């Protein structure tokens, strides 16, 4: 199967056709839809493992859609970075989907499983595409599915958070089109590899407008990745939506981050002459300020889910700092931290939901409440998640932060980076310790009116935490892998060559049968 030229396309085809199939399965009941959803996501997991294998063996694999060669045709480009993101998404999706089924959240409205698959389709498309306009289209696909998922189940505050989310993303889409239009007008192409070449040969008179269009594109990705000062929509939207959706959305901010690494790293990469990496100081500054703001948000949050939303912001800001340091070593560390923070943040969203249900009418507010059922078990999980998320030893968050700090030592701004990451970590540790002691120790007398612990749902949290443990045990090989990915991401030449020189497939295998 790994020799099959259409392999990258399979990562799009499975969720797209699968989503349609689940829609058609609606008359046969939710049970069938659930089984189909799980099977499809499992199938996608096999495809993504295959993708990883191919990407590491072959470097780049280009799939020419409709058999039109780049730059005129649209291409899907599989490389180690995109394969890693697709695999991460699929693992996360499996955990979120299992929790949604275990907690019956998919029963609260129609078409949860359809939207879920279409969301995966949009995400995988955004990771695999090699064309900026196609990236816009896949962003719209994943956003439209995310609107549906975000509002799933309904409720007043959810509608309000959803409205803000939709409006800010529509503005983002408009800006995206302005940036894409300007880049097309100046460079005459929208294929990323072709754009990289056009930027390298850019006449001096066009430098300023191209730089401006590139920064406009950065603003768009900043909205998606929720970085300072464009993050205000995130806490409301993520804290109010249902737990599995919030868990899946832990990857959504990383899509924006991936787009910066992919689009800006390729088009304004090492061979872009005067514009090489001109965006990185902006990214680093936004990351530093954003980390401080997110840490304050973690301190000030009035509910556990809101606190986890701010922890997501803090992790995004840390990743931005890693990207902004602009060395392959730092990017390797960043990718390690990206895997960790996505999975642990998702687990914390799920855990916050379990805790909120256990506390009944007190929900996730930071107030003293009667002790929840199974408080010791949940408390142990919370302790684990808090340690991993805030970056205390011995879990993967600590390893990730150490790798990033280590990579930062050589940078001019190392004092700022070290200071900000360490101080914000301290603030987050204090905040999480306070919320943990309030939720689990500072309890009122009497029986809780909450639900009993949803044990099947806890399996998702357990699975995600076990991956965090695995990332510590195998920290060396995993860091080696992410550093190899980062090296390749910085080496733009082979990417450009491979995209522009992939011939169209001749139809030999069609004729062979006759």
């Amino acid at each position, binding site marked *: 199967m790994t020799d099959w030229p259409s392999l990258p396309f399979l990562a799009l085809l499975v969720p797209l056709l699968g989503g349609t199939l689940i829609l058609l399965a609606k008359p046969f009941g939710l049970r069938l839809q659930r089984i189909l959803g799980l099977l499809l996501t499992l199938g996608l997991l096999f495809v993504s493992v295959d993708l990883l294998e191919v990407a590491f063996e072959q470097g780049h694999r280009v799939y020419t859609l409709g058999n039109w060669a780049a730059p005129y045709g649209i291409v899907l480009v599989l490389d180690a970075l995109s394969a890693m993101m697709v695999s991460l998404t699929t693992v996360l999706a499996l955990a979120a989907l299992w929790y949604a089924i275990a907690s019956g959240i998919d029963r609260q409205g129609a078409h949860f499983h359809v939207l879920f698959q279409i969301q995966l389709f949009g995400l995988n498309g955004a990771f695999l595409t090699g064309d900026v306009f196609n990236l816009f289209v896949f962003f*719209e696909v994943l956003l439209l599915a995310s609107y549906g998922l975000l509002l799933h189940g309904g409720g007043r505050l959810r509608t309000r958070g959803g409205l803000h989310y*939709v*409006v800010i993303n529509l503005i983002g889409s408009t800006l995206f089109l302005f940036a894409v239009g300007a880049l*097309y007008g100046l460079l005459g192409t929208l294929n990323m590899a072709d754009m990289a070449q056009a930027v390298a040969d850019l006449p001096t008179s066009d430098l300023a407008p191209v730089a401006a269009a590139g920064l406009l594109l950065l603003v768009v990705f900043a909205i998606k990745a929720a970085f300072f000062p464009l993050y205000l929509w995130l806490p409301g939207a993520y804290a109010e939506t249902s737990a599995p959706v919030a868990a899946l959305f832990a990857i959504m901010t990383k899509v924006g981050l991936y787009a910066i690494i992919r689009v800006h790293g390729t088009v304004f990469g090492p061979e872009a002459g005067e514009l090489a990496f001109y965006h990185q100081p902006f990214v680093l500054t936004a990351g530093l300020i954003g980390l401080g703001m997110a840490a304050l948000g973690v301190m000030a949050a009035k509910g556990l889910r809101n606190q986890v939303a701010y922890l997501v912001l803090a992790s995004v800001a840390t990743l931005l700092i890693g990207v902004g340091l602009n060395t392959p070593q730092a990017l390797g560390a960043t990718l390690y931290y990206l895997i960790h923070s996505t999975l642990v943040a998702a687990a914390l969203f799920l855990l916050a939901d379990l805790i909120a249900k256990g506390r009944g009418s007190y929900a996730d507010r930071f107030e003293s409440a009667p002790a929840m059922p199974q408080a010791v078990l949940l408390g142990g999980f919370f302790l684990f998640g808090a340690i991993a998320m805030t970056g205390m030893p011995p879990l993967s968050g600590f390893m990730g932060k150490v790798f990033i700090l280590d990579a930062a030592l050589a940078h001019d701004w190392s004092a700022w980076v070290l200071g900000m990451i360490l101080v914000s970590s301290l603030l987050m540790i204090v905040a999480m310790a306070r919320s943990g002691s309030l939720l689990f120790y500072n309890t009122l007398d009497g029986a809780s009116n909450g639900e009993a612990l949803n044990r099947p749902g806890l399996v998702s949290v357990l699975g995600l935490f076990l991956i965090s443990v695995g990332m510590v045990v195998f920290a060396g090989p995993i860091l080696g892998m992410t550093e190899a990915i980062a090296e390749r991401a910085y080496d733009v030449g082979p990417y450009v060559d491979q995209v522009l020189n992939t011939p169209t497939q001749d139809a030999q295998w069609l004729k062979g049968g006759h």
Partner: protein
Amino acid sequence: MEILIAFVIGAMTASGVFLTLRGRTFPVVLGLTLLAYAVNVFLFAMGRLTVGLPAVIDPTQGGYADPLPQALVLTAIVIAFGMTAFLIVLALKARAEMGNDHVDGLHLSEDEASLKNTLPPRSQRASRKARHADQQEAGQ
């Protein structure tokens, strides 16, 4: 023609930004629609403005208009159309659930607040400001 197009795009973008910053959902929807119009014209102009050239390659003519921006605009129009429809439905849902059409769901204008007192109360769904007004009236 370039100057005229530039002014058209500029005016639509400025109006769109102004309306998007308003506090109520309907002007915001209109603002986003205007922004979408502006960006469509902008995309179209990025293929360079040409007069009298065929849209499809014609061997008897000297040149042809750039077809790619036209394809981009078509895609953008369809997406913007769908998104606007979705946003309108969402705004109506928000209006129904929160009892007012403010984007924060918290504020009522004066006439709505006074109108509210003549209607049967919506209990919990009343906004903070309206509740405040009710309390003041009860105190008098």
